[in-house]
């Protein structure tokens, strides 16, 4: 049953990754990216990371993708039409190198062994939130500062010059 779920989710993810890479139209690539996000959220659920699956759906599939669609609508369509698809020569040069590095990574993962701490986490959301607000409180505050800086930077970049 586990492998059935894994096979379903991974086939879905691989198909949507191919869509993101090779579809001509940017909107179609964006839609297959949404499909990939849903597949990755399913993988998170399967790996028992429920909080992260929910946040993945909320942040990626709602906030980020809507932002992309808004930006695509502001750019004139005939301009986008001139630059669709991908570079053939770069693909032929880059694909074998990435294939070799995937083989190396896969060898390292399959042959290697991981450390086993072995404590079972019962309530995922509770444990993650507890650790987020005690051990990792300072990085959480730093993340909020990063979000604030990104907001100010986006406002400054998008402002019209007077």
């Amino acid at each position, binding site marked *: 049953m586990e492998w059935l779920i*894994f096979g379903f989710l*991974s086939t879905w993810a*691989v198909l949507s*990754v191919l869509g*993101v*890479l090779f579809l001509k139209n940017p909107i179609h690539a964006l839609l297959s*990216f949404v499909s990939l*996000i849903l597949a*990755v959220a399913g*993988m998170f659920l399967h*790996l028992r*990371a429920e*909080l*992260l699956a929910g*946040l*993945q759906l909320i*942040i*990626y599939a709602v*906030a*980020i993708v809507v*932002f*992309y669609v808004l*930006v695509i609508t*502001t*750019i004139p369509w005939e*301009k986008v039409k*001139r*630059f669709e698809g*991908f*570079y053939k020569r*770069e*693909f032929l040069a*880059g*694909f074998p190198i*990435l294939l070799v*590095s*995937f083989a190396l*990574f*896969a060898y390292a*993962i*399959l042959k290697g062994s*991981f*450390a*086993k*701490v*072995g404590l*079972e*986490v019962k309530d995922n959301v509770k*444990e*993650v939130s507890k*650790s*987020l607000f005690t051990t990792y409180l300072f990085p959480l505050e730093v993340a909020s500062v990063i*979000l604030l*800086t*990104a*907001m100010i*930077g*986006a406002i400054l*970049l*998008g402002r019209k010059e007077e």
Partner: protein
Amino acid sequence: MTIEKAYMLISIFLFLSGLLGVIIRKNLITLLISTELMLNGVNLALVSVDRIVGGIEGQVFALFILAVAASEVAVGLGLIVALFRLRGYEGSSEITHLRD
């Protein structure tokens, strides 16, 4: 091969295909989407290693990666829109000012 290792293989695939997308795509917006692909791959790797080791720290770091991804999208799309409005650029091969 356990199921967590299989998920790690999928995450490596996601990361490397995001890198391939950054190399080969022509449109600037699809370039940014490929960057998101790489971030998703890293998130998946963190969560699956978490499942192997049996902790929760990887999920906490994946949360931080989500925050960084959101801010990266805000700044990157702002840059693309500003570049388009000021110069009219939309493809990655048009930005050659430093080279010329």
